[in-house]
C-alpha cells in the first residue's frame, strides 16, 4: 500500500509569513507586468478582426507583415499558431482607424484577404477561422465577464454563510479573491490572451479553489467539535495535515488532466489549460496559507466561542460518539501559541 503524507505532522501555519512574502512577490511581479504591458485582451473584448490562415508551405511572418503593410494594415499582430504553416493575424480596432466602426471589422477581413492573395497567392492558403467583433459587443462582453466574477463571489459567500459560519465564509472568499488576483498576475506575466474561455477558466479556478478550501474547513469544523481542548492554531494544522493525502491525490489527478489538455488539446485550449494548471497550485496554496491564517486572524479580532466553531455546529445535532474503539487523539501539532 502506498501512503503519501500519512500521519503527516507539519507545522504549516508557522510558515505563513514566508508564504505571505512569496505570494506578495508573485503579485508584485504581476502588477509590474500589468502596469507596463497591460492585459492581452482577445478581440472578443477589444473588438477587432482575427483570421487564422493555414498555408501549404511555411511562409515567413515578415513576408505576411510586408503584404499587410502594403494594403494599409499597420500594426496587425502576426503569430504562428501551433504549426509553422498556421498563422493568426489579429487587427484590433484601435489599429484600423480611419473607417467607421461598423464596417471596419469587415473591411479588415477583406483587406487581409487581398494582402494574402498578393503575397502567398490565391489558392495557396485557406482561411480556417475568422472572428470579427464590433466595439459594442466587446464592451458588453467585458461587462459580462466582470459581472460573472462578482456574482460568483456573492453567491459563494451566501452559500458558505448558510452552510458554515460567516467567519469561515469570509476567510474562504478572501482566499478565493487571492487566487483571482494571483491568476491575473500569472496571466499578465505569461502574456496569455484573455478570451472568454480564459475568463471561464478563472471562474473554474474560483470554484476549484473554494472546493479545496471547503474540504479543509469541513475538517476544521469537525475537529473543533472533536478536540475541544485545543486551540485554533493546532486545529488548523491538524486539519491541513489530515487532508494532505487527499490534496496530493486530487490535485495530482486534476493536474494530470490539465497537463494533457495543455500538451494535446491544441492552441485554442492552451491558454485555458495554462490558467487551470496555475489555478490548481494557487488554489491549493491559498487554502492552506490564506484561508486558514485568515480564520486565525478573525478569531483574534472577534474572539469568542463562535470562532471556536460552536455556532458552526449549532445548527446540527452534535455527532454522537462513534462506536468501536475510541479514537486516540493525535498529539497537539506544535505547542506554539497564537501570536
Amino acid at each position, binding site marked *: 500500500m502506498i501512503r503519501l503524507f500519512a500521519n503527516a505532522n507539519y507545522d504549516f501555519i508557522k510558515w505563513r509569513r514566508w508564504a505571505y512574502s512569496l505570494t506578495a512577490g508573485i503579485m508584485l511581479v504581476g502588477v509590474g507586468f500589468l502596469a507596463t504591458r497591460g492585459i492581452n485582451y482577445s478581440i472578443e473584448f477589444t473588438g477587432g478582426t482575427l483570421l487564422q490562415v493555414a498555408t501549404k508551405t511555411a511562409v515567413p511572418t515578415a513576408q505576411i507583415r510586408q503584404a499587410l503593410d502594403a494594403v494599409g494594415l499597420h500594426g496587425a499582430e502576426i503569430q504562428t499558431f501551433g504549426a509553422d504553416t498556421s498563422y493568426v493575424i489579429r487587427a484590433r480596432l484601435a489599429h484600423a482607424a480611419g473607417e467607421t466602426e461598423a*464596417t471596419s471589422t469587415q473591411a479588415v477581413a477583406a483587406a487581409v484577404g487581398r494582402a494574402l492573395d498578393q503575397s502567398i497567392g490565391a489558392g495557396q492558403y485557406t482561411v*480556417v477561422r475568422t472572428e470579427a467583433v464590433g466595439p459594442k459587443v466587446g464592451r458588453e462582453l467585458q461587462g*459580462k465577464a466582470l459581472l460573472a466574477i462578482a456574482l460568483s463571489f456573492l453567491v459563494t459567500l451566501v452559500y458558505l454563510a448558510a452552510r458554515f459560519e460567516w467567519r469561515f465564509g469570509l476567510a474562504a472568499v478572501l482566499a478565493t479573491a487571492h487566487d483571482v488576483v494571483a491568476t491575473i498576475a500569472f496571466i499578465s506575466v505569461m502574456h496569455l490572451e484573455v478570451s472568454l*474561455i480564459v475568463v471561464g477558466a478563472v471562474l473554474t479556478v474560483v470554484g476549484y479553489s473554494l472546493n479545496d478550501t*471547503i474540504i479543509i474547513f469541513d475538517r476544521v469544523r469537525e475537529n473543533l467539535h472533536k478536540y475541544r481542548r485545543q486551540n485554533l492554531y493546532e486545529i488548523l494544522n491538524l486539519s491541513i495535515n489530515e487532508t494532505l493525502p487527499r490534496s496530493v491525490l486530487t490535485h495530482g489527478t486534476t493536474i494530470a*488532466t490539465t497537463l494533457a489538455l495543455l500538451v494535446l488539446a491544441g492552441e485554442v*485550449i492552451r491558454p485555458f*489549460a495554462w490558467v487551470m494548471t496555475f489555478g490548481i497550485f494557487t488554489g491549493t496554496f491559498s487554502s492552506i496559507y490564506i484561508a486558514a491564517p485568515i480564520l486565525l486572524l478573525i478569531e483574534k479580532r472577534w474572539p469568542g466561542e463562535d470562532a471556536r466553531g460552536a455556532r458552526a455546529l449549532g445548527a446540527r445535532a452534535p455527532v454522537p460518539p462513534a*462506536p468501536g474503539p475510541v479514537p486516540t487523539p493525535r498529539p497537539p501539532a506544535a505547542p506554539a501559541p497564537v501570536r
Partner: protein
Amino acid sequence: MSTIRQRLIIIGLLIVGSIAALVPRNVTQRVVDPATGRMKDTTVRRMPINLGLDLQGGIHLALEVDQSKGPVPDCADAIQRAERVVRTRIDEFGTTEPVVQIIGRCRLIVELAGEKDPARAKGVIQRTAFLEFRITDMKNLFQSALPQIDAALRRAGVKARGAAPSAVAQLFGGDTSKAGRDSAAAANTPGVLSALLNQGQVPGEFLVPEEEWTLVDSLISRPDVRQLIPRGIDLRWGAQVESRGARPYRPLYAVESRPIITGEELQKATARRDQVTNQSVVEFTLSRRGGRRFSEETARHIQDYMAIILDGRVQGQPPVIRSQIGTRGQIELGGKPLQEASDLALVLRAGALPAPLTIVEERTIGPSLGADSIKDGIHAGVVGVVLVILIMVVYYRLSGALAVGALTLYCLFTLAGLSAFGFTLTLPGMAGFVLSIGIAVDANVLIFERIREELQHGKLVRTAVDEGFKHAMNAIVDSNVSTALTAFILYLVGTGPVQGFAITLIIGIAASMISAIFVVKTLFLIWLQRRPAMTTLSV
C-alpha cells in the same frame, strides 16, 4: 441482499437509459442536393450529440439594425421584422438546422452550422426584403396546363411515383382525375406532377405532401416544365407548412406574374382584435400613390384572392378581396388568434420598411479546424483518463479499480446527459469534460482517505467503509455545490462556447456524484458481501 439488488437495478436502469440516449439514430437533416443546388431532406445515422459551431465548423453572426445613417426609432420592431425576413430565407442557406433568434432587444443571432460560404450567407441575410401583393390564378390556367406538363415529363423519362400519392389526391377531391380525363393518353396512369398536387381551398392553391416538396420543386424548376407554365403565371411556395389531418403539407400557389402593389407603397400595418366582431384584423395604410393604384386594381378583382408574397414566399392563406380598397384597408383573419394577425402585420412591415442590418460580430470556423479540434480534444481526453486511471489504481489498488469502473460510468452518464437534454458540445465543453474527469475522482479520494483513517483507528473493515462514506459526505456535498454554483453563473452570464463549458461542468458534477458515491458504494457492498471475513481492505 435486497439493498444491493435495488442498487444494482437503479444502476442498470441508468446505464440502459444512458446507452439509449447515445445510440446512433436516424436524424433528419437538410442538405444541399449537389445536382440541383437546392435543399433536400436526408436521414443520417449518427450519435445524437449536438456539436457546437466551433467543432463542426460554421458561421455565427450577430446582427443589429444599422443606425449609422440616422437613428432607428424602434429597433425592437426593426429586429423582429428582420428576423421574420431571415426566417423566410432559411431554405437559401446551405446548412442543416440554421438557428435564427433574437437576443436581448435589438440583436439577431444567426448560426449556420456547416456553411462553407460566408460571403453568400451574409448576402442572403442582408438582402433587402421584397413584399408584393399578387392575384392568384383565378382562371385555373396552371391547372389546365398540368396535363401537358405531365406529358412532357413522361416524354422526358421522369417516372411517376407509386400509387400512394394519387390515392391521397383523390381523397381530397383533387384534380388528378380531372387532369387524367383531359388527356386521353394519360387516363390510366397518374400524372407525374399532378399526382403530387392536391387542390387547395383557394383558387390557384395546391397542397404538396411535405416529404414530396423538394421533388415537386425540382420538377417545376426544370426548363422544359417552365416553358409549359402559362404566360403571366408564376409558381410560388407558401412560407409555412400546413397540416391536414395528421399529414403536413406545403402549399404551392399559382399567382399572376404582375404584382398589383409592392411593399414600397405600404406605410403602416398593425394587428388588433375587433371589439365588435371579435375577429383578428390586420390594418394597413398605403401611400397616396399606392392607394390610387390599389383602388383601381381591387375594383377589377373583387371576389378574387390576393397572395401576400415576401421574398418569393406566400405568407399565410391568400385573403379574398371583398370591396374596392383605397389607402386604408384591413385583412380579416376571422377567429384565428391575434398572434397570427401580429405575425402577418410584421410580414407587411418587414416588406414596407427595410431594416438594414449591420454585422456586429462574426465567427467563422472552417470544418477542418473543427475536425482537428475534436481529434485533439479526444487525444487529450484519452491521455488524461489513462493518467487518472494509473494514479488511482497504483495508489488505491483494488478500491482504485472500483473507482475507475465508476469513472467509465461517469463518462457514459455525462455524454448521455448532454444528449438527453439537447445541450451542445463545444470545444471549451470538451476541455471542461476532460478537466472534470480529474475532479470527478475527488469524491472517491475523499471517501478512500476516510476509510484508511478509520481502518487506522482500528475499526473493522465493514464499519470503516460505512464510516468513511458517511463522514466524507459533508465535504463532498459542500465542495461540489460550490463548484456547481460558479458553473451555473458562468452559464447565466456566458455566451455560446462558454455556456457549453458550464453545461458540461454542471452535468459532470451531477454525474460524478452518482458514479463516485452511489456506484462505488454499491461495488463496495458487493465486495464486502462476497468476503465477509475480510480483515484487510485493498484501499
